[in-house]
């Protein structure tokens, strides 16, 4: 098991190197650079811009800059954000908690809604509930997240039931501890639903399809023949088997949520990583972009690793060592 984990980490290294090269090349090909904004401000002197070009090594070809960067990374230094002049790691850490909370909540939301709905849709196949839920699933899958986010903001603005964006209200720091928690929760409801909605639909479909597969298997007949109650057959025997594909699919959740959250966070004004990455991309704040892309990558791989481990834990037929 340990060997398996170590091997997965080792294979990450060449992948990350490849991705970082790709990011540097793409950033070099992309038109303009970080100093464009300063260049169009009439009251910033030319000498200052020259000094900055020198400091950021913007005149150098991308491979020179890449190796300077790589040298620093090997020493544990991911560089400094050009916009904020603080270390990239620190900048990312400021935003990670907010995004993780949102991601974790949307995963929980998605699973809590999708699993029961998928199961019910499978048990009552072709019933009116099944039809409605699949209609809902296709609709949710085909609506882009940012659009859903816009609808949510409109809903909040119209009804006034929820805040129109952000993570906390203006009065936040003057509240009691519980008041602050409630304030956070109040702000998290809409983003969680928006971000989780797409996953709800896809998990529900996966759950339903697998459940249907297993409902027809021999062990179900055996269990029924033994005289087990229908509830026990469905929720213990069938569910236990049908949940495996969902576990492996959840490996991608972290990564897809991260990419989804870039749009949702921007529309809903949520102070997470997405906002930061979006700004860094637009301004071409190179080291932040590279770090963010690599982090997304690490999250994808970690997510897959965790999914594999969970799968091994939930399904005794799977042995990681033999893979």
């Amino acid at each position, binding site marked *: 098991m340990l060997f398996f984990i170590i091997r997965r980490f080792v294979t990450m290294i060449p992948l990350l190197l490849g991705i970082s090269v790709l990011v540097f090349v793409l950033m070099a090909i992309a038109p*303009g650079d970080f100093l464009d904004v300063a260049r169009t401000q009439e009251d910033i*002197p030319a000498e200052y811009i020259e000094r900055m070009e020198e400091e950021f090594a913007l005149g150098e070809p991308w491979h020179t800059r890449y190796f300077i960067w790589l040298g620093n990374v090997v020493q544990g230094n991911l560089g400094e954000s050009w916009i904020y*002049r603080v270390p990239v790691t620190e900048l990312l850490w400021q935003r990670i908690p907010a995004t993780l909370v949102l991601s974790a909540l949307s995963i929980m939301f998605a699973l809590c809604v999708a699993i*029961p709905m998928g199961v019910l849709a499978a048990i009552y196949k072709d019933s009116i509930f099944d039809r409605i839920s699949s209609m809902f699933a296709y609709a949710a899958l085909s609506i882009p997240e940012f659009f859903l986010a816009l609808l949510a903001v409109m809903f909040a603005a119209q009804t006034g039931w929820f805040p*129109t964006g952000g993570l906390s209200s*203006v009065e936040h720091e003057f509240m009691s501890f519980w*008041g602050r928690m409630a304030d956070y929760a109040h702000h998290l409801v809409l983003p969680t639903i928006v971000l989780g909605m797409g996953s709800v639909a896809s998990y529900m479909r996966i759950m339903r399809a697998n459940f249907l597969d297993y409902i027809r298997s021999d062990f179900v007949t055996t269990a029924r023949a033994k005289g087990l109650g229908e509830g026990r057959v469905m929720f213990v025997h069938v569910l*236990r088997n049908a949940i495996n594909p969902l576990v492996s699919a959840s490996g991608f959740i972290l990564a897809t949520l991260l990419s989804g959250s870039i749009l949702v966070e921007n529309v809903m*004004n949520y*102070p997470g990583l997405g906002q930061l990455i979006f700004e860094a991309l637009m301004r071409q704040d190179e080291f932040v972009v590279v770090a963010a892309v690599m982090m997304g990558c690490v999250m994808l791989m970690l997510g897959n690793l965790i999914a594999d481990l969970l799968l091994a834990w939930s399904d005794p037929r799977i042995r990681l060592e033999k893979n």
Partner: protein
Amino acid sequence: MVFKFFIPTSLAHFLAAILLFFALASCKGDIPPLDREEHDLPRDAEISRSEPGKYGGVLVTAESQQPRTFNPLVAEDAYSSEAIGRFLNGLTTYHPIKEKVVPELALSWDISKDKRAITMELRRGVRWSDGEPFTADDVIFTFKALFDQRYPNRYMGQYTIAGEAIEFEKLDRYTVRFKTARPYSPFLYVIGFIGILPRHVHFDAFERGELLQQWSMRTAMHAPRELVGTGPFRVRSFRPGQRIVYEPNPHYWRVDSQGQRLPYVDYLITRYVQDRNTETVLFASGQIDAAAITPGDVVGVRKNASLHDYTVHHRGPATGIRFLWFNQKPGESQAGTAYVEPHKLEWFTSRKFRQAILHGFNREGLIQSVYFGRAQLLHSIISPANERWHNPDVPRYHYDPDRALELLRQDGFEPDQDGHLVDKKGNQVSFQVYASEGDDITPQILSTFRENMRDLGITVRIRYLDFGTLVARVSRHFEYEGAMMGFTGGADPSGGRAIYLSSGRLHLWNPEQEEPQTDWEARIDELVYASEETFDLDKRVSYVHQMQEVFSEELPLLYLVTPYAYVGLKNRWQNVRIPSMGSVIWNIDELYLGPEK
């Protein structure tokens, strides 16, 4: 039962929990009034002439971007500068209502006979927000830091006059003297740009070479009290991507006529929103106190005015300018191709051609169709919002296609039998205009332009580029024919010298010339320098007016229209005075909450 958790009954619990939180959140309390510290008033406290008010209230604003840093040496964007200006003061500042430079940390100044030495007396008894006294040492320290080669910053170039850094020396504890290589009349204006730094806070970091790492956003997040200043506020808390909360600086040096220390507000809160539209929505739903409103949103926002008790004020023309221009740069790129094809360069460098194009452009129509009448024609390189410097009597180019054709004929252009305009050598007139995508008005302006040009027999191709590409093309590669852009505009014309001077970086049509290439550009250079050397305000204005005449006669930039600016403000705020340009809450320290209606 392994999967008990997933059974729908727990879903109901989950929803119930959310509802409970929701109920809790909706009964949140108001912000408690501030407990103010009492400190002696400084000897040279400034007494505000505004009507005395009373303490209390929270003023909430919104910005579409957050400050990147709280260190004035690092800041290069308006949002950081604004945040820094809340807690730091300059020596002088620009008063947007009086339209002149007024004292801030300097109490008064004296200009020597040769106009090169400026002696400033500082305000006595002023204290930093941590209680330490403010003296000439702080001023000297600030200027030493900004001329230190270890700390590149934008002010270094701004305070280099005629190629030489300004000199500064301390005469006594409350007097400093500046010297410039040549007489420089915008001096008093520009000297106020840099916020004076507290020496006692930064001296060690300065010595270690770490001054630029000081006062980053992490200071504001974790130790806001370390942002020590003399300004009206100090930072109470900063949450990136969310908001900044300021509270009054208990050592601030301005008082009202009843001896109450300003500012009146208990807290000033700036929320960060992702874009301008959100700001408008927040204002229209009564969640923030002030917001800039675009001409297109005025009607919609006014609908809620009585519900949330606010007014949308008309501020007159906006301060920025927008224009189209043609590339007039001669020569070849490194690859050996001409920046502009020679026959096109000949058109673009012809004054009559440029005048004809502007005459042929129906800008009056644009005002009706795009801005619904909430804009006016722009005739000069300085916006009419800048009343002191704007010259209203420059040559104007109204929509007049006949005049346009006449000018083109004088220059040797003739329409051929198919209606295409051709030059004397038989080339059909066509050019490409680059613009940056991203705002919804640009395409409307440019399609009108293209239609108008087609009426003259000119083919215009429009290409939209990403902003970075556009900047790179016009300022580094020079490979373009025409382009459209804008500048924001400042209070003093010295801020535009990068555009006006032929050696300027933003002399867009032909930047960074070693020697002025045309007589009129030489004339502009002369006028700019003359205006910066004279201390007689009327003379300065006259030079700047002449400069605008040359620009409008030669038309290197074809001005578009200038939309009107609108600002929304809640009516409960008293002492509001809305200037024609700049921030609407520029006198935030004097604003106070009036009686509730």
